[in-house]
């Protein structure tokens, strides 16, 4: 049987959570299809990861080369392509992350395999592979069928699957030699830059008052700042507020911002795109105020207010 491939994501000496979430789903898929589960570990000085990965897969393919020390979509793509040609995996899973965004579409062209990105679920229906995705910022779901092919590529949304190991697997380690030389890299890593640090740490706050694009104008931000001060909450925001430079980056909640875990998260004028929601899964109680009753944020909020935030803010200020 052809294996299912899962690409191990790691950065700065740590395996990223998405890896185990993909492995959780791949474990399920392997049952339906009876395929062995293979994790693909690419990088340099990655042996410390083997311990953590053992038991999760039937096979661990390790490609270790100094050129692969930092993620480079061009080189990783070449390595994966060689492995795909040799092992012919039926499904290859990658994260819908900065890695997957750069790697998966290119690999789809190179292999000729159909690609479904940002999958919330993967279904097999006989020999047909299907993906459940979202469109229009999460306002609708789509079921996508992938054309019959020798292999399929899917990128998986962070948080879509639980990192559960259903059984112990033998975890045979194969140190893989490459069949062909790697191409000259066209990209040279320079450095990592921390962009999220600042004078407050929203990740530590118990009560966050968070504002999104619904605030409309920079001047209106004063209203929210005043409210945060009166209520004793910490100000946070969605990405567009940072993009517009209305607040510094360390206020941003979400995949590219911070994950937060307040007791209460009050979301004002935030639609609830998944990159934002990913940052608030640890919140105790979510209260959302949004004009749009169909805003995806209401699907995760505990309490919802369908109203113009410019009516709610003054009313709140009046009562405190």
């Amino acid at each position, binding site marked *: 049987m052809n294996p299912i491939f899962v690409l191990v994501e790691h950065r700065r000496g740590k395996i990223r959570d998405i890896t185990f979430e993909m492995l959780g789903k791949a474990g399920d898929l392997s049952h339906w299809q009876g395929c062995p589960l293979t994790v693909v570990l690419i990088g340099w000085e990655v042996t410390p990861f083997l311990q953590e990965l053992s038991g999760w897969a039937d096979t661990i393919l390790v490609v270790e080369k100094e050129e692969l020390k930092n993620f480079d*979509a061009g080189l990783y793509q070449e390595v994966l392509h060689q492995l795909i040609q040799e092992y012919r995996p039926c499904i290859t899973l990658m994260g819908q992350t*900065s890695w997957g965004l750069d790697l998966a*579409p290119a690999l*789809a062209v190179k292999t000729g395999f159909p690609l479904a990105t940002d999958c919330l679920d993967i279904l097999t229906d006989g020999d047909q592979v299907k993906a459940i995705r979202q469109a229009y*910022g999460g306002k*609708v779901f789509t079921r996508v069928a992938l054309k019959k092919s020798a292999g399929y590529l899917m990128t998986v949304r962070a948080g879509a699957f639980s990192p559960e190991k259903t059984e112990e697997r033998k975890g045979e380690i194969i140190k893989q030699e490459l069949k062909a030389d790697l191409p000259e890299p066209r*990209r040279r890593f320079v450095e990592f830059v921390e962009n999220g640090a600042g004078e407050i740490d929203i990740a530590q706050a118990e009560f966050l008052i968070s504002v999104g694009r619904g605030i409309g104008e920079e001047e209106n931000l004063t209203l929210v700042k005043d409210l945060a001060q009166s209520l004793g909450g910490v100000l946070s925001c969605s*990405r567009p507020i940072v993009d517009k430079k209305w607040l510094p980056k360390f206020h941003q909640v979400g995949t590219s911002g911070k994950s937060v875990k307040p007791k209460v998260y009050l979301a004002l004028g935030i639609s609830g795109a998944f990159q934002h929601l990913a940052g608030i899964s640890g919140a105790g109680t979510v209260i959302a105020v949004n004009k749009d009753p169909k805003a995806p944020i209401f699907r995760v909020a505990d309490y919802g207010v369908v109203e113009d935030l410019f009516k709610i803010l003054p009313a709140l200020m009046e009562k405190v």
Partner: protein
Amino acid sequence: MDIIVCVKRVPFTQEVDLEIGQDKKDIDRSPLVYALNDWDGYAIEEAVLIKEQFGGTITAITLGSEDDEEVLRRCLAVGTDKAMRIDPGSRELDGYGISRVLSEVIRGLSFDLILTGVQAEDDNQAMIGIMTAEQLGLAHAAVVTGIEVKDQSALIRCELEDGLEERSILSLPALLTIQSGINEPRYVSLMGIKKAAKKGIETVLLTDLNLTEEDLAPRTHIEEVYLPPDTEGADMIIGEPSRIAEEILRLLKEKGVRT
């Protein structure tokens, strides 16, 4: 620097009650208002900023119907030199097919850099840019938040997760997918758009391109579009703003974040 920017016109779906279309393959788009895909607005602006520094030309390309020319006019209004629309006719294309078409057209043009948005607001696929790069055999980078062009290379910043960024040097020509916040897209006046309406838009017919059925055959197809399944959802607080405010304050007390 010759720069090509691929752009898309997308429907605006916030504060709109979306209806599923009759064939259940898409939403009913007819009542919707359209605009330039947000991420593409940043890509165009970045192209204009680079051109202001180094000179050269900018060509904006879209694949779509005549109505989609609206976004090309917007590009022309902010400083794009040329605009091109590829007309697919009645052909349905998936992401792969679109990248195949774009690359075929781009192959005939001169460029140092190709920019696209990270993703489109409507299908949220985030694949066209990088697929196009691969079709053209170009170096690529996704989720780019900074570009400094130097000779035949660019020092770029790419956004990773958790507030982390990576700086790297990429050799040109290359394709970059642009993340929001990289710049501040300039304001486009209605006058500017009206003026740009006089500039010509070149049209390319899909049927005139040298592409086979296999190049264009979809590899993925949408079986069904549906409204999100019901979840327990939020408890709705209803009433006058003052009652809502009281209820929120009561909740804050109950949850222990206010005395």
